[in-house]
């Protein structure tokens, strides 16, 4: 799974924001603000990646245990899918 084409992640004045570009502007016209973990996951999801691989990358990047990482990734994926940002 990966993020659909048509979104741009950029740091603006200390915040990680996502805006639609190109085809993305047809579906969504707002601005999304991500926390640091959210931005990390979003960047990793710009290339096709499995949920398991995401969990492993979070464990490598952050000082956290596997159970927490798994839960965080699952929650994050649910909200991204629910918002229609994920292409399967």
């Amino acid at each position, binding site marked *: 799974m990966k993020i659909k084409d048509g979104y*741009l992640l*950029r*740091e*603006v*004045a*200390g*915040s990680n*924001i996502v*805006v639609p*570009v*190109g085809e993305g*502007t047809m579906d969504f*016209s*707002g*601005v999304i*603000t991500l926390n640091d973990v959210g931005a990390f996951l979003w960047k990793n999801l710009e290339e096709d990646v499995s949920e398991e691989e995401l969990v492993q990358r979070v464990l490598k990047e952050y000082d956290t245990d596997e159970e927490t990482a798994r839960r965080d990734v699952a929650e994050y994926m649910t909200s991204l899918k629910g918002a229609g940002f994920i292409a399967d």
Partner: protein
Amino acid sequence: MHKLRVADIDLLIKYKYDTMLKQAKFYETEFEKPQITIDIPDETLEQWHRESPHLTIDDIEYVYTGAAFYEALLHFNGFMLHSSGVVKDGYAYLFSADPGTGKSTHTELWQKHFGADNARIINDDKPAIRLVDDRLWVYGTPWSGKTDRNLNMKVPLGAIVFLERSEDNWVKQIKAVEAIPLVMQQTIRPAEKDRMIMLLDMLDRVLSSVKLYRLGCNISEEAAEVSYNGIKVEE
């Protein structure tokens, strides 16, 4: 074709209707080679006119030449903020809000309260902001919305203020993270990725270095006093 200098950019531009002829008069200049050329074919203007029959062809020319200019502005470390800009004590204060909220009414109150010579409207609707020589400047442009209030001058940016109607008058400083969606609503959002990156990089600079406020205001003269005292640049 007309030769204008707008926001310190040499602009070769075609227009022929009254509004543009009148609005652009104070921006005429001479140069050898333009930095931006805007040449919208007559057929295109007529097509847009057919799509928006409630506007006159004169309005269409005014709106779309402006849109073309502000899109090109992104390539010159600049962007447009939908706002009424007032200059006081050598700084430009930009009051931004949706149409009909009372941006122009508020800057008119500044003029009434401080005198028209001490509070000058640099652009009543669409000032340009540019990063030049590592400093942020506000410029008047010929495109100032429904009024002809604009001045061909540049002034350092003092503050950006998001205005809302309120029974009493108050000012609250806000953080960049709160201002990002507000600014994005009040500028032209480029659909194309390269230009969106240019816009976001400008916003990164602007929102990191300029004071940002929310202003709740009514239409009494006290609103101008409260607003000025809350946002003025302290030397």
